[in-house]
């Protein structure tokens, strides 16, 4: 992490460039796999065409063992410190959030990343999907803020 304190501005620029590049590659792969098409998503959810299962499964099958090995041997990343993988335990909000997300996935026939590719491919109703995703995230953020305020008001201040 010593380079972080040495060149914070340059590091930020590099991170931004990495963001743009990985985003573009991700968007390109999703488009290449046709995940921006409602039919691709729906034929998977109808279990008529398991392409998405193979697509996601093979991405995980390639990345999981490499990430496991990289973390075990200890890897210092140039822009993010030591590689540390998340090992979060499942909680109620994960299952609730997943269920609500799944409902939306089936109805809207897209998810956050493919919705962006929809629009750049000329599918205009993707804009409606993007607006809805922004609104939904915002509603959850506001609710989380209120819960936080309630919590801090309930906890007595110790002097």
């Amino acid at each position: 992490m010593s380079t972080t304190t040495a060149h914070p501005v340059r590091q930020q620029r590099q991170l931004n460039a990495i963001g743009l590049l990985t985003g573009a590659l991700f968007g390109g792969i999703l488009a290449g796999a046709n995940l921006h098409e409602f039919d691709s998503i729906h034929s998977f959810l109808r279990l008529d065409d398991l392409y998405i299962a193979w697509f996601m499964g093979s991405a995980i099958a390639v990345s999981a063992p490499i990430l496991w090995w990289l973390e075990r041997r200890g890897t210092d990343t140039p822009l993010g410190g030591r590689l540390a993988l998340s090992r979060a335990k499942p909680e109620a909000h994960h299952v609730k959030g997943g269920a609500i997300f799944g409902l939306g996935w089936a109805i809207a026939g897209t998810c956050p990343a493919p919705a962006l590719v929809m629009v750049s491919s000329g599918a205009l109703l993707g804009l409606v999907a993007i607006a809805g995703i922004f609104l939904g995230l915002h509603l959850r953020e506001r609710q989380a803020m209120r819960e936080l305020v309630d919590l801090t008001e309930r906890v007595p201040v110790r002097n």
Partner: protein
Amino acid sequence: MFELLPDRLPWWIAGPTLGALIVVLFVVANQPLGASGAYVQTSGFLRRRTGVATWRVWYFVGMFAGGFLATQVFRSGSDIRSGYDALRDAFPLGIVIPLVFGGAILLGYGAGLAGGCTSGHGLCGTAQRSKASVAVTATFMATAIATTAVLQLVTPL
């Protein structure tokens, strides 16, 4: 413009390439490739909040740009369209728009509550062997498949 990409890449090319991209972002920046997080940061950026991870805003722009390159430049180009032909065959536009909007609100709210979406939990979280991500992924897969089955029963879809 050009016809460099086939209509659909075989999964055994698209999937492992995506897997390699997930590894690259971890090796370079120790970060997961999550899309809903990029929405949150972009929303904060547009509302001029402080503490925004600007690289996630660039990532948001990148997904859009990459989709444009792949569909309009590397393929012959796709037309301006609704993108929801199957829904539009089944319902009038006055129903399709609120349906898509409502579904998308659920997507956003659910991703916010779960702390990630198909990319953050489904791909990167399971690739990290996070039990929480496996729980989220199993839940949204099961719910989406069940909801689709119900929609097919009760609607002309």
